[in-house]
């Protein structure tokens, strides 16, 4: 297979683009897609410092690598979930990545904030692990950004992640969730930082290939709690569709963003206020994270 740009030996075939690229031209393609996402959604400007949420996986480290290579000022945020050897290894990958590139890395232990590591939260609350984990991550990312003075948090969500989330929302007609699905979520409150997803135009295969070709040492093994997760099942369904019809995931997500999402936007957004317990932004009196932490505390006492 030949590279579409130079005719050299291809490293990766992109069926949805009906193209193949050699390593240098694929890396060029990848960076252009990130630049297009940043530009199209005005995600951040060169004079801002971006807090990149990193897990040690391919997506977030690939994102951090692109932003550094493109000359952005960045810092990393690693949330230590306390998931056995998986967290030990993923933290080490993030620390090594940051040290090799001279970047700052903030580390926040979920156990310090919630009262237990993620496995302990699951045992104490009987709540689905991925649900408590996602809630904790969103809360702690925002809190860390505010504490350290970053106006924007970038996450490594890719096209597959976004298509799977959309699929799940549509399957259950979660019309409240649909308008919140966006490559860039603006700050709608002084205590809510902007959240952006610069990899939303790139598939999981593409982020993995980029990380590999750039020599990024990422954690390949998946989170032990991801097995059987609903989001994984949705990805598998979409991958079958993609195999039969290349571009299906792209069309599903981009069609939604361009044509369907506006129909679900409400003229009046939710009223945001500060949590009476922690001061972070919430729609109720006490935020969901404080309720979770309180439940963990009570069950473990």
């Amino acid at each position, binding site marked *: 297979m030949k590279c579409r740009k130079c005719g050299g030996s291809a*490293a990766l075939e992109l069926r949805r683009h009906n193209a193949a690229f050699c390593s240098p031209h694929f890396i060029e393609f990848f960076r252009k897609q990130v630049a297009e996402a940043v530009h199209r959604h005005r995600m951040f400007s060169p004079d801002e410092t971006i807090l990149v949420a990193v897990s040690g996986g391919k997506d*977030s480290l690939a994102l951090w690598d692109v932003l550094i290579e493109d000359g952005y000022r960045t810092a990393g945020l690693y949330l230590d979930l306390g998931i056995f050897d998986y967290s030990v290894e993923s933290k080490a990958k993030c620390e090594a990545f940051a040290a090799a590139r001279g970047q700052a890395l903030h580390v926040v232990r979920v156990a310090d904030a919630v009262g237990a590591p993620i496995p302990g939260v699951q045992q104490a609350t009987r709540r689905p692990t*991925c649900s408590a984990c996602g809630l904790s991550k969103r809360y702690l990312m925002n809190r860390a950004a505010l504490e350290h003075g970053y106006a924007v948090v970038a996450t490594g969500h890719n096209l597959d992640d976004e298509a799977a989330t959309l699929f799940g929302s549509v399957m259950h007609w979660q019309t409240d969730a649909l308008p919140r699905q966006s490559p860039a979520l603006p700050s709608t409150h002084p205590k809510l930082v902007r959240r952006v997803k610069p990899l939303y135009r790139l*598939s*999981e295969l593409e982020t993995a290939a980029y990380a590999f070709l750039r020599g990024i040492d990422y954690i390949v093994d998946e989170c032990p709690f*991801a097995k059987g997760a609903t989001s*994984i099942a949705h*990805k598998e369904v979409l991958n079958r569709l993609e195999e039969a019809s290349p571009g299906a995931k792209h069309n599903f997500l981009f069609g939604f963003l361009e044509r369907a999402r506006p129909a679900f936007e409400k003229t009046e957004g939710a009223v945001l206020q500060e949590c009476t317990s922690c001061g972070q932004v919430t729609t109720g009196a006490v935020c969901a994270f404080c309720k979770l932490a309180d439940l963990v505390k009570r069950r473990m006492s």
Partner: protein
Amino acid sequence: MKVILRNPRREVQVEGKRRVKELLVELDILPSTVLVIRDNELLTSDAMVGGDDVLEVRPVMSGGSGSAA
């Protein structure tokens, strides 16, 4: 050839030569869900493999909480 698979990590021995896409069909793996690596290089689906090759078939799927970094 030796084929190294992940999640869980295991190895299988496959006899004879074939293209990567044929190997993946035999292993019941969708091509868009893995990187196929030989000698620290990515292989495309039309690449011939076999003999003394050692291949890593590395899954690319991740997920769970939906808010992963």
